[in-house]
């Protein structure tokens, strides 16, 4: 049976809350355990409530856990905010003076005067979080050696005094736990299998994936929650000969990507909802001029400024159709940090191979989620570059050749004899403006057949997650980070005796028609859980496949929880037995 532990640390932003969470995650990952984290950010720039929830498990997990086993609150606000999520059988470690709400008291409460230890005994508030670590190491039986090794690494560059100072704080925490709290809490830290796992956030995985795919030029504009991608690349891409440039706005970024890609470099930008809206005109240009480009959209609460630090999946229709006119683009949706790495590589491959813009939809939760990734996954895939040609001095080069494959070979600027025009205007094969009806029809067909070819491309086959009982009549279709809670929900439902099967397509344009059609044939109910108000995937499926989808939507700025999905499943279950008589005669 899988053993996992859900720890949540909450408190005032700036008190090193996140460091506690990341340290636990890092140590677990080094021991081969699976980690999924979930963190929230305060809207304010400095200060304000924030929390990080770390789920450690020795099995394969993809969700940060619904109920908390072990809650750590460093101030009263954090306690009031997070107390509700604590499992009845969970334990609470909190600042000494906090007082607990009456109506529900957890089984065990540990009160530790962290503030007093840090300020008065050690003399520096900032090392309070190390004291908490020390306490936790005892309560959760986390090997102290691992913590000390991690601290040594973390402060290696700093002076020895600071390291000692932190070790001292650690020891104080340990001592206090042993002397005052009775040593252990009953929640056992799972023991790892030993083969180290990589640990990274979604954004880091995307950036790494891009670097691996041979990204040459990155143009971006800071926007929560995507900025980390640019920041990571700014540090590491130049090492590989790449260039990163922050532009004056998203429009300039995406246009620079268009220019750079046309000039022959693999180019990418990353942004969030508001940025993608600004980029929509250029998306049209990219698909009209058939220029490869990768655009990452880390979705956040919308519309407009919305909730910058909150997660949502409400940019789907914008990603699919955003731009005036029929402008084809591929849309991918990673479900996990591992996916983030792999699908970024795939995005570059598709863009280069089919010469069109590819949008990768992640959301704030996934972007910020720290998760372990299997090292084998993180390999540099063979680089795919666009079909190029050297026309030679005699010229006669035709950029938008209407050939059988539908993919016109490209003469990169600088190639002799390849002089040509790319344009946003409808054009003939040579690239000169031509607005007669035949040309427009033929060229639009040429551009849209690419989606069909992507659908049939082995690269995108088998890109969907399948879990649950093949024979179940209730089906779940979801996308992106909601796959995690969906998977837990299926497992939860199964444990309640309700058969459910689920499919999570990772490519949303073109949709994997065959897989989805076979899935719909197998089920009677199709539940579509997603983090947006209008049920965007649900309406897409309904319009594309004319199937009666049941939409489950949530826009609270935090991911769906398995229990919410299971409630819907139960509801479907009951209605199924009633309605099936009406429609299908006796059930079964």
């Amino acid at each position, binding site marked *: 049976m899988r053993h996992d532990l859900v720890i949540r640390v909450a408190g005032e932003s700036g008190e090193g809350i996140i460091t506690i969470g990341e340290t636990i995650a890092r140590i677990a990952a080094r021991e081969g355990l699976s980690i999924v984290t979930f963190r929230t950010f305060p809207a304010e720039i400095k200060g304000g409530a924030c929390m990080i929830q770390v789920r450690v498990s020795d099995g394969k997990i993809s969700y940060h856990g619904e109920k908390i086993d072990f809650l750590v609150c460093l101030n009263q606000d954090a306690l009031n905010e997070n107390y509700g999520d604590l499992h009845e059988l969970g334990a609470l470690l909190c600042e000494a003076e906090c007082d607990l709400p009456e109506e529900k008291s957890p089984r065990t409460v540990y009160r530790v005067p962290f503030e007093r230890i840090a300020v008065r005994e050690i003399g520096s508030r900032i090392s309070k979080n190390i004291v908490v670590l020390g306490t936790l190491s005892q309560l959760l039986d986390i090997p102290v050696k691992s913590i000390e090794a991690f601290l040594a690494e973390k402060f290696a560059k700093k002076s020895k005094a600071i390291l000692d100072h932190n070790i001292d704080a650690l020891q104080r925490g340990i001592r206090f736990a042993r002397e005052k709290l009775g040593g252990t809490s009953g929640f056992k830290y799972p023991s790892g299998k030993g083969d180290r796992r990589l640990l990274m956030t979604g954004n880091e995985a995307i950036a790494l994936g891009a670097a691996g795919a041979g990204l040459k030029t990155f143009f971006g504009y800071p926007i929560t929650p995507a900025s980390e991608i640019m920041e990571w690349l700014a540090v590491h891409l130049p090492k590989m000969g790449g260039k990163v440039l922050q532009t004056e706005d998203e429009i300039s970024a995406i246009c620079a990507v268009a220019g750079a890609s046309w000039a022959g470099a693999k180019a990418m930008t990353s942004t969030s909802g508001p940025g993608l809206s600004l980029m929509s005109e250029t998306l049209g240009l990219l698909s009209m001029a058939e220029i490869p480009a990768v655009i990452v959209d880390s979705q956040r609460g919308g519309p407009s400024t919305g909730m910058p630090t909150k997660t949502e999946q409400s940019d789907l229709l914008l990603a699919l159709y955003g731009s005036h006119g029929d402008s084809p683009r591929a849309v991918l949706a990673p479900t996990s940090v591992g996916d983030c790495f792999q699908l970024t590589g795939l995005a570059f491959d598709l863009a280069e191979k089919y010469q069109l813009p590819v949008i990768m939809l992640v959301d704030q939760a996934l972007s910020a989620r720290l998760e372990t990734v299997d090292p084998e996954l993180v390999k540099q895939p063979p680089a795919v570059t666009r079909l190029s040609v050297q026309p030679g001095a005699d010229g006669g080069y035709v950029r938008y050749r*209407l050939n059988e494959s539908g993919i016109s070979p490209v003469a990169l600027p600088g190639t002799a004899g390849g002089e040509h025009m790319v344009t946003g205007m409808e054009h*003939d*094969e040579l690239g000169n403006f031509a607005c007669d009806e*035949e*040309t427009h*029809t*033929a060229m639009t*067909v040429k551009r*849209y*057949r690419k*989606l*069909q070819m992507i*659908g049939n491309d082995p690269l995108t086959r088998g890109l969907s997650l399948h879990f649950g009982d093949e024979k179940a009549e209730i089906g779940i279709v979801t996308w992106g980070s909601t796959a995690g809670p969906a998977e837990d929900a299926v497992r939860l439902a199964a444990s309640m005796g309700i058969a459910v099967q689920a499919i999570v397509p990772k490519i949303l344009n*073109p949709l994997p*028609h065959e897989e989805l*059609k*076979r899935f*719909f*044939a197998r089920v009677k109910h199709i539940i579509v859980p997603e983090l947006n108000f209008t049920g965007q995937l649900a309406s897409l499926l309904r*319009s*594309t*496949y*004319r*199937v009666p989808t049941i939409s489950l939507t949530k826009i609270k700025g935090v991911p769906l929880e398995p229990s919410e999905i299971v409630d819907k499943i139960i509801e479907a279950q009951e209605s199924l037995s009633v309605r099936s008589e009406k429609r299908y005669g006796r059930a079964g």
Partner: protein
Amino acid sequence: MATVLSGNSAAAWGFRLSRVQCYPYYPITPSTACSEQIARWVSDGALETVTINAESEHSAASQIIAAGKSVRAGTATSSKGLLYMIEVMENASGGSIPCGFFIGNRATGAPINIWADNSDAYAMRDSGAIQIFTADAQEALDGVIQGYRIAEDLRVRLPFAVNLRGFTGTHAYEGVEIPKPEEVDRFLPGYVSTMPLFAPAKPVTYGAMLSALPYRRHKRNQMAALKNAVEITQEIGREFGERFGRSYGLFDWIGDQKAKLVVALLGESAGAGEVVVRHLQGKQGIPGVALLKIRLFSPFPAREISRALAAAGTKAVVVLDEGLNHGGVFPPLAQRIATAVQLHLGSHAPKVASVIGGLGGSEVRQEHFQLMFNLADNIAEGKASRAEPYWLDIDEDPIFVENENQVNPKLWKKWGEVWKQQKRKEKYFSPLPQETDEVRIYSRAGQGAITSAVGFTGAGILAGRQLLTVPAFGSERRGAIITTDTLVHGGGGQKIRSFNRTWDVMVLYDDTILYSPEHQALDGLKESGALLINSSRLTVKKLREQLGAGKANVRVFTVPAAEIAERLGLKHINMAMLGALHRVYEKIPLEKALPYYERHVPKPRDLSLEAIRLGYAECTDQGAKKRLKEVRLPVTEEFLAWRPEDHSQIAWPSEIEEIRAG
């Protein structure tokens, strides 16, 4: 063997064969082409003439009269040009200089009008020159040669003018026999000046000032000399007939020898009259009718004409004048005939009526002659007629009036009585049979339609038929809609020079002409006719709709001439259209015409011939198949029909059901 010449070119040949030695010229429509032809020959060295680029007609005439004192000189002019010359013409007739003029008759005066009538010739009638009126290109050529022979005769020694109606004469292309130079030299010896200037031994003075006595004696001699020209013209006309097979006289009497009714006129408009006369001859209830086509207008052969009328027992003569005698009693020709018959036949003189028509390019049509013979009939029966000229085609003052309110009361007050007696007799208006095929080409100026029609005429003549092509255009250079009419006649027998204006074949060089309200192009097309259009846009089906019910069985042809021209890199579509015309009008087969075209199409000859063949081949009446505009894109229909996965097709639910079942 006949060559296709326009009236102007024929006159130019006249000058060339007469070995004219000095030809000053000044351009004026419609006679310019004659001077251009001479200029081309001189610059190519085919003609020895000394040409002078005069700065005005007045100077040109002065130069002719000066040079005429030593060598044979001549030029061509029209309308206002002739009026400038008249100021100097007296010096020629007064100075007995036998120089020659070819006049393309055209209206004069305000308002300006570039089309034909005789007002310029009439303005010249008092300048003392010989005036010969010709009816077609052949007569013009022969006229010039005979003109020099008459003028240089020592009994005459006066200048002469050969007149041909503008456009319908000067620009009409037809088969012309060009006599051999040696034969003409025998007929017309070199010119010897009686008082040469360049003879040091005999210095002479021209243009001295004479006081009253010597002046009046001189004038009398001059008149006598002009009078001699009547008899000499007849002599020379007969001699020309013996040498070249075409004899000429003072006038032509066409129709019944014993003609009670005679219509008299000058020049080219007689063509329509001849057709009417032949049609009316021997008709039941129609007395003898004849057409008096007068050739020698000045000196007017009064006695000869009077004697002819008397011999024919003519009772009534209706004279058609294509010009005016401002302030006079009758227009010039009518006045001359009226006085001639009065003076020569006294009480036996036939009654004379005057009709004015054909002014400023107005057309003298066949029905006008029917009107005039009807009028003559009434007059012959003693019905009253006007002592003033009648007018053709003037609605407010018609020749016959059914009822009073048809005309303005003032006019009725004046001519009511006459109108009452003048009755319209239907027997004169029976429809005329049409022995000729008529082809009309609508094109835009500058498209080369005339060149193609002239080529067609030449080919037709080579194929043994008789053709006449008459272009009609305004003063525009480029772009205006112009018409080019061609008449095709079976060949032997009477020459026909009159259009019926109902077209057997109509050719449109530009499909937009269909929509020109002013032209109503399709109205004149015969029921059994054929329509040929240069168009790659309009299909035969669409054209049929345009034709409407009335013309259901009209054969319709389209030819993509513009594309053919473009393919061959030719500037004009006229050769392709010519080829297509042979397809539509089979009576002149292309095989017969090709030998002619090999020598007469415009350069580059091979491309023009190719265009003719392609025009013939690609002319179709099946309705151009909707050729997909040659898609530049190498894609198939299926490709264009492709759409992204459309899972919402009607059949869709079944697909899920299928999988469920499957």
